C-alpha cells in the first residue's frame, strides 16, 4: 500500500508538469500582441512596452517563461493579470462560489442517483428499472446547456420557483444551477449503482446470505450495498474534480461569477496569465481527484492488489 502510494505520487509529477506545460504553450500561442490589446488605440511608448515585457518575462523563450512561472506557483504565486492584480486574489474571490455550486450539485446527484440506482437494480426489468434507464439516457443525451436553458425557462421564468440568474438570493439561487450541473452525473451514478448492484446480487455471498435466512432487506441493504458502492464511490471522487471544470457552462447560463466564468472572461480578454493560472489550478484539482480514486480503490477493495 505504502509503496503503491509513493509510486503513484511519483507518476503524478511528470503528468502535472506535462499538462501544465501543454496549457502554457497553448495559451501563449495567442496570435496578436496582448500588450497592444491592453493599450487599445493608443500607441504605447517603447519603454513602457519593454517594461511590461520584462515584468511578465515575455522576452524569454517559452520554456524559460514556463520555468519561472512554475517557480512562482510552488510559492503560491499564480502570477498576476495585466492590471497587476494577483491571480490568487481572483482565485480566492471566485473559488468559494464554484465550490459552493459544485458541492450542492454533488449532494444532489449523490442522494438522488444512489436512491434511483438501488430502486432500479433491486427489481431488474421492472417498471422502476425501465423508468430509470430511459430517463437517465434522456438526461445524458440532452446537452447541458439545452437542459440549463429549459430549466431556466420553465422553473425560473414560467413557474417562478427559482431565481432566474445571478447569486443575489444566497444559497437559494445556487439550487437550480446545481441541479442542472449535477444532472448528467446523477444519471451516470444511477446507472453505475444499478449495474454494480445487479452484478453483486449474482455473487455467491448473496446466495449464502439468503440461504442462511437473512431478510431481503438485510441482504441488499448491508451485504450487497456496501460492495456495490465501490465503483460508485470512486466515480464520485473523480466527479467532484470534473464538476469544478464542468461548471463553466452552467455558470455562463445562470450568470454565476465563479471560476468557470473567470476562465472564459480571461480567454475573451486574452489575459493569458489568468487563464493559465486558473486552468493550472483546475488541472491540479482534477488530478488530485484522479489520485484519490486510485487510492480509494486500493482502500475499499482489498482484492485489488497493487504491486
Amino acid at each position, binding site marked *: 500500500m505504502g509503496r503503491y502510494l509513493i509510486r503513484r505520487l511519483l*507518476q503524478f509529477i511528470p*503528468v*502535472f508538469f*506535462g*499538462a501544465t506545460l*501543454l*496549457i502554457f504553450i*497553448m*495559451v*501563449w*500561442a*495567442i*496570435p496578436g500582441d496582448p500588450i497592444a490589446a491592453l493599450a487599445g488605440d493608443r500607441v504605447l511608448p517603447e519603454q513602457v512596452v519593454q517594461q511590461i515585457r520584462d515584468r511578465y518575462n515575455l522576452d524569454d523563450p517559452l520554456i524559460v517563461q514556463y520555468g519561472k512561472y512554475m517557480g512562482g506557483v510552488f510559492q503560491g504565486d499564480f502570477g498576476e493579470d495585466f492590471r497587476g492584480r494577483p491571480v490568487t486574489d481572483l482565485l480566492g474571490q471566485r473559488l468559494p462560489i464554484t465550490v459552493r455550486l459544485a458541492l450542492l450539485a454533488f449532494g444532489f446527484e449523490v442522494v438522488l442517483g444512489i436512491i434511483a440506482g438501488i430502486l432500479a437494480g433491486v427489481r431488474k426489468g421492472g417498471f422502476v428499472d425501465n423508468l430509470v434507464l430511459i430517463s437517465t*439516457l*434522456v438526461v*445524458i*443525451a*440532452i*446537452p*447541458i*446547456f*439545452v437542459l440549463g*436553458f*429549459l430549466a*431556466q*425557462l420553465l422553473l425560473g*421564468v414560467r413557474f417562478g420557483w427559482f431565481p432566474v440568474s445571478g447569486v443575489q438570493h444566497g444559497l437559494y439561487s445556487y439550487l437550480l444551477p446545481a441541479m442542472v450541473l449535477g444532472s*448528467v*452525473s446523477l444519471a*451516470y451514478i444511477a*446507472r*453505475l449503482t*444499478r*449495474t454494480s448492484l*445487479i*452484478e453483486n446480487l449474482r455473487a455467491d455471498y448473496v446466495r449464502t446470505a439468503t440461504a442462511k435466512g437473512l431478510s431481503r432487506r438485510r441482504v441488499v441493504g448491508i451485504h450487497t450495498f456496501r460492495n456495490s458502492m465501490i*465503483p460508485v464511490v470512486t*466515480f464520485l471522487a*473523480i*466527479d467532484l*474534480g*470534473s464538476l469544478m*471544470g*464542468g461548471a*463553466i*457552462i452552467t455558470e*455562463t*447560463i445562470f450568470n454565476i461569477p465563479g471560476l468557470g466564468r473567470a*476562465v*472564459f472572461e480571461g*480567454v*475573451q480578454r*486574452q489575459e*493569458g496569465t489568468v487563464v493559465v493560472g486558473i*486552468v493550472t489550478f*483546475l*488541472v491540479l484539482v*482534477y*488530478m488530485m481527484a*484522479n489520485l484519490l480514486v486510485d487510492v480509494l480503490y486500493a482502500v475499499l477493495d482489498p482484492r485489488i492488489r497493487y504491486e
Partner: protein
Amino acid sequence: MSDRDRERLFTSSPAPVVASFEELEAEPIIRREGSLYADAWRQLRRRPMFIISGVLIVILAVMAIWPGLFTRADPRACNLADSLLRPSSEHWFGTDVQGCDYYARTIWGARVSITIGVLVTACSTLIAVLLGSMAGYYGGWVDTVIARLTDIWFAIPTILGGIVILRSVFSTRGLLQVSLVLIVLGWPTMLRLVRSAVMATKEMDYVDAARALGVRNFRIIRRHILPNAVAPVIVYATITVGVIISAEAALSFLGVGLQLPAISWGLMISVAQNRILTAPHLLLFPGAFLSVTVFSFILMGDALRDALDPRLR
C-alpha cells in the same frame, strides 16, 4: 463528467444473456456457429432500442447529406421584414432575428453536427487503434511512453482545453479547426480502451500459436488481435459520435466553436440565448434536434454494447 468515467460506464456490463429458456430453445446451438457479428446482428434486429436509434440515425444522415429533401427553403435567403415570426404553416419553426426560415436552418444544421461527429470519431479512433495496439502489443518502453503521454492529455478537461486552444491558436474557426481540436483532445480515452482490449487479447492461445508459427508482429496485430479487440471500440466509437456532437455544440454555444455564417445547432442556441423570453422557439427547435441526435447515437451504442460484449454470452 470525465471521459474515463464514460468509458468505464459504457464498457462494463449489465443486461441478461438469455432472458428465458424459451429463448434458448428458439435459438439452437447449431445456429450459433456464425461470427460474433452475425450473432450480434441476429440479436440486434429484434431489439426496439436498436431499431429506433437506427431509424433516427439514418434519417439524420439523409438530412445531413441531402437537406434539400426535407426543405425547399434556402436557409440563407432571409427577409428582415419577417424577423422573429412565431411558428406558422408557412414557417414551420418560425423565423430568426434576420428573418431566415428556421425550419430550413435547423435541417441544414444536421450537416455540420454529423460531419464533425463522424470525422472526429473516425480520426481519433484511427490514432487510438494505431498507438493503442502498439502500446498494448509491444509493452515495455513503447507502452510506457504512450501511456504517460495519454495521462498528460487526460489531465486536461475537454471543454477547458477546447476553449483555450480554439481561442488562442486559431484566428478563424471553421469546421476543420473545431474538428482538429476535438480530435486532439478526444483520442486518449479511446486509446486506453484499445490498449486494454489488445492487452487482453494478446494473452490468448491463438496468438501464441500464430507467434510459434513465425507470423510477423504486424500481421498478428492486424489479423489476429485487432479483429478480436474491436468490439468495445465499435461500441465506444458510436457513443463518442454523440458525445462529440454535444461537445461541438457546447463550444459553439460558448462562442469559441464555429462562427457565423456557419449553420450549426450550437451556434443557433448561442444566438437564441439572449431571446429566450421573447422567442423561446429559437432555443427549443435546435435544442430538440441536437438532443435527439445525441440520444440516437448513445442509444445505438447501448444496444451495440448489449449485443457485442462477449462477456454477456
